[in-house]
């Protein structure tokens, strides 16, 4: 079982990786938060859902990869296909969230509901969860670094605990995003956020499709 030294290492690795996590998740989190309704409480709920789903994504991948013995040795081909597919899915979810955010406001701007994906809000998967889960699976560099270390531990439980503590370390850096709840959600702010989501979605879609098509991206 992971001792306190290992767990403190996980926490420090998480804290040190924070800026990279902010950078990789920022394009998804910031505009989607701004497209939501204002309010610290609502934005905290959104961020918590996002981070929780991201955590699930981490743990799921870690558990599956550990069992397959593939935490660090996933071959480049399948790894790139996975990354490509996730980017395309992420793009799709971002576009849908952007559409639904505008549609929801046009219909009835109820102040306390999170934007949902799906035909009706009751059945739909919260957008924050979908985005969080997909970013959790996206194999960003901090995640890979944690994976390398976790793979050296004795058991899948230890690896999962390592990831959990690592995740807490990275999540500290997301706390300031709650402050976006103070930004008044005028038509300007929500429109800008939705347009930004579309632009970022287009970039992720391009990245995902070029990887899936096997084209050399940036020369690789």
């Amino acid at each position, binding site marked *: 079982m992971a001792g306190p030294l290992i767990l403190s290492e996980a926490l420090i690795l998480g804290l040190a990786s924070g800026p990279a996590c902010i950078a990789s998740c920022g394009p998804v989190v910031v505009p989607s938060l701004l497209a939501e309704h204002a309010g610290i409480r609502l934005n905290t709920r959104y961020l918590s859902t996002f981070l929780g789903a991201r955590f699930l994504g981490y743990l799921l991948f870690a558990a599956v990869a550990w069992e397959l013995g593939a935490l660090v040795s996933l071959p480049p081909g399948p790894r790139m296909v996975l990354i490509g597919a996730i980017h395309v899915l992420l793009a799709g979810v971002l576009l849908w969230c952007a559409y639904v955010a505008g549609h929801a406001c046009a219909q009835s701007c109820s102040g306390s509901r999170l934007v949902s994906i799906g035909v009706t809000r009751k059945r739909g998967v919260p957008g924050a969860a979908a985005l969080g889960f997909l970013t959790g699976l996206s194999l960003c560099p901090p995640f890979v670094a944690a994976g390398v270390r976790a793979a050296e531990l004795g058991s899948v439980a230890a690896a999962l605990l390592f990831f959990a503590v690592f995740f807490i370390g990275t999540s500290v850096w997301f706390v300031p995003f709650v402050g976006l709840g103070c930004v008044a959600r005028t038509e300007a702010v929500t429109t800008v956020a939705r347009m930004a989501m579309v632009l970022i979605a287009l970039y992720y879609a391009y990245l995902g499709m070029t990887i899936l098509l096997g084209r050399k991206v940036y*020369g*690789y």
Partner: protein
Amino acid sequence: MKPREKLGYTAAGLTVFAALLVPFLLFGFFTKGFAALGLHVDEVYSGGPKVRTVQSGAYSIDIHRPVHPHMLQTEKPFVQLDWRPVRALPPHVSELVDVDGDGQPDIRVSFDVPKDAKTPLRVIVETLNPRYEAMQNAGKEKFSKLIVRVDDAILVRVPLTRP
């Protein structure tokens, strides 16, 4: 005149005065300010600082500090080696290089040095140390994997294998 108006006109006057100062004072002041911020150009572009020079007859090999990508950059980590001056290089270079300075050769770098500076360069890198990636007839594919001629030096960037 109300105090607010006085303030407004004063600010406007100062703005016009500031415009006069731009070429004689402000431009230079801000330029020096930006230069003094201690910023540096991303090492993925610049190649990182030089850490060692190995003399090899009439030419030398500058070895730079390994560069690691930031955030989600798609470049691989790499190390840059500079052969200079180009005029002192033989027509074909094939050299064992101790990159990490431990006394053991890490890679063998081979490339032709064409007389015409515009001829594209190609490099073969064989690795003796698994920390470095081999390169087969590489040109200038990426910032982290290339051979180029810059001024009077030939630069080779060898990717590092990921941990």
